[in-house]
């Protein structure tokens, strides 16, 4: 024990023999590990949010529909025996909540524009149990089917509202004071004064005017924020939805907006309209108890595969699919990300390893007389090797631990505050990602990184240590 403790002590002291050089190496390892861990946490957060958004706002965990419905989108393909199907699903262990839906493809129209949409008929009370959409209503735009109305009600996305020219852009004193509150410099806000009192019926017209007032850099930095604050919407605006009824006759109806929702995925916002099941069934002539789809939320996401299998067995004749099958790209991304982390981590560690090898080679060269002396007085090759290896591990681990501690605190803070990349919100939104990213990483990841750093230290020591072992003590002692 004493023998090994003396080698450990000597190796640790040797690391700090040349403080300047060791600190440079330790700093580079610290920065490398911080960059690696934080980047992975950022990516992890981005993907986890995307999956979470998809599960809670777009597709849910499991979908049940009639065979072929998902492919053909034929509104006549309804779920037979809906009551029995619903009770079978509810009775299955692990099912948290479900929602029955009617799905029709149609067109949304205003006096300005028309666009193709997926119309989803829902029971709002049921849907709240499964989806988060009720919490995604843009403040000031209405509510989640909260008000009773004689008219048909519809909930649409912000992007669709822009597409249909339902939103307006205008700059008034409230807009200006909000921009100031959000830290936009006074000189930028002052440039907006000429727009006061003007109303723009679409986003493009507003952007065109902004381009005349701001430089490209200013537009890039503050454009998204100004658009957000200048945006307004007239509550209760109307538009028409046209679609085919159960007999394939085209029908149309006026819908009043109950509110606008804002989710991370712009494509989903642009293409999905939520209406009440009752309204849609009445307009299409579908029976009251008919549904096209049942979406299911599970209590434990890890058990989604087994619950899918159980339901598929209990519901013959129906298609039961979980999110991994519905959106294989998303499932593939979550599966691939681990491998990506591994490759990314290995590249960083390989770069660090070369730095450590270089330093340790210098160490061996500088200390060849001392290493020769140690062999001469009876320190065997295994112990010389161990000492060099420990120095390399200490060097990498010191930097590695510093990098991980730094990463831990930065991730801890940013996981609460989020990293706001709203400058690129449109790009993120187009891909379905949120522009406010909350980095996250598991505690186990830090353990894995620690082990990888130790392995890197050991591997980095092999070549320099072999060089040390090849030193001839007689020649090494003679070296000046």
């Amino acid at each position: 024990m004493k023998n090994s403790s003396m080698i450990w002590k000597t190796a640790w002291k040797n690391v700090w023999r040349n403080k300047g050089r060791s600190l440079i190496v330790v700093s580079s390892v610290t920065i490398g590990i911080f960059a690696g861990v934080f980047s992975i946490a950022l990516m992890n957060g981005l993907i986890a949010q995307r999956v979470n958004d998809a599960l809670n706002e777009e597709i849910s965990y499991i979908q049940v529909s009639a065979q072929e419905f998902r492919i053909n989108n034929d509104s006549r393909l309804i779920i037979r025996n809906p009551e029995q199907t619903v009770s079978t699903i509810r009775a299955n262990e692990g099912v948290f909540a479900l929602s029955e839906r009617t799905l029709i493809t149609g067109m949304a129209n205003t006096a300005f524009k028309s666009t193709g949409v997926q119309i989803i008929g829902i029971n709002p009370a049921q849907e709240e149990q499964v989806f988060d959409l009720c919490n995604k209503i843009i403040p000031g735009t209405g509510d989640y089917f909260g008000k009773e109305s004689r008219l048909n009600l519809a909930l649409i996305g912000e992007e669709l509202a822009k597409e249909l020219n339902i939103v307006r852009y205008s700059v008034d004193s409230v807009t200006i004071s909000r921009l100031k509150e959000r830290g936009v410099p006074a000189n930028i806000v002052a440039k907006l004064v000429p727009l006061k009192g003007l109303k723009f019926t679409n986003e493009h017209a507003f952007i065109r005017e902004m381009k005349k007032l701001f430089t490209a850099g200013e537009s890039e930095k503050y454009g998204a924020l100004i658009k957000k604050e200048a945006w307004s919407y007239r509550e209760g605006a109307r538009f028409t939805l046209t679609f085919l009824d159960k007999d394939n006759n085209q029908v149309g109806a006026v819908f009043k907006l109950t509110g606008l929702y804002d989710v991370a995925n712009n494509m989903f916002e642009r293409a999905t309209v939520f209406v009440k099941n009752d309204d849609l069934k009445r307009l299409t002539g579908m029976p009251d108890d008919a549904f096209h789809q049942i979406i299911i939320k599970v209590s434990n996401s890890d058990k989604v595969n087994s619950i899918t299998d159980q339901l598929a067995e209990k519901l013959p004749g129906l298609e039961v699919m979980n999110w991994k099958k519905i959106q294989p790209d998303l499932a593939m991304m979550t599966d691939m990300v681990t491998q990506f982390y591994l490759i990314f981590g290995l590249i960083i560690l390989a770069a660090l390893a070369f730095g450590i090898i270089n330093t340790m080679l210098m160490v061996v060269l500088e200390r060849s007389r001392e290493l020769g002396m140690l062999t001469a007085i009876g320190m065997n090759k295994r112990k010389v090797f161990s000492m060099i290896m420990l120095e390399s591990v200490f060097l990498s681990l010191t930097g590695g631990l510093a990098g991980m501690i730094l990463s831990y605190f930065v991730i801890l803070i940013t996981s609460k505050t989020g990293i706001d990349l709203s400058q690129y919100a449109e790009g993120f939104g187009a891909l379905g990602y949120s522009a406010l990213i909350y980095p996250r990483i598991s505690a186990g990841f830090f353990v894995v990184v620690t082990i990888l750093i130790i392995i890197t230290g050991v591997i980095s020591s092999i070549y320099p240590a072999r060089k040390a072992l090849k030193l001839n003590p007689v020649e090494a002692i003679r070296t000046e």
Partner: protein
Amino acid sequence: MKVIEIKNVTKTYNESEVHVNAVNGVTLDFKEAEFAAIVGPSGSGKTTLLNLIGGLDNPTSGEIIIDGTNLSGLKSSQLIDFRLRNIGFVFQAYNLIPVLTAKENVEFIMSLQKWSKQESDTRTFELLKAVGLSDRANSRPVKMSGGQQQRIAVARALASRPKFVLADEPTANLDSKSASTLLAIMEKLNHEEKITFIFSTHDARVVKMAHRVITLEDGKVVSDDIRE
């Protein structure tokens, strides 16, 4: 009792196809507790002979037997272990480990031999006292003079109670006073611990104190003067 037997040892170096006999047919014995100096002009083979006796180099021919063990029959790893247990080294340039304190430098050999902490502490204290540096136990070599460093090197060489100590020009870098102190300490330890000391040296003071003086010329022993 013979501690070292050198039988007709030759060491030949081949440099640019020229054979140089650094040690040429040397036959010598060293007994327990000898205090011997190997002298001779530069290039006479003193250091080479010392390296051969210490198992740091292999003879081209002949045999070196230490306490009954023929060094030629040992593998590299066995030789290292043999040196650890039987031979103490004192180098011209001290060669202490700069990051360790005086005490830790002395303890280092004992730690390699897996001595217990208690044994190691006792022996270290004893040796630091013997070389007159108990008060510098926690100093690093860089804070000590050349003479003090060489005294620590002597303490380290004696730490594991070797059968003999090989000292290559131990006083070459020391001033007169430090050299005299060091020699006095080594002579005292030779007397008290019954450990054989073999020096290679140019230093007249070492020669004066040595009990036996072996003179080499061109790798050959030209005189072997034993003083009573």
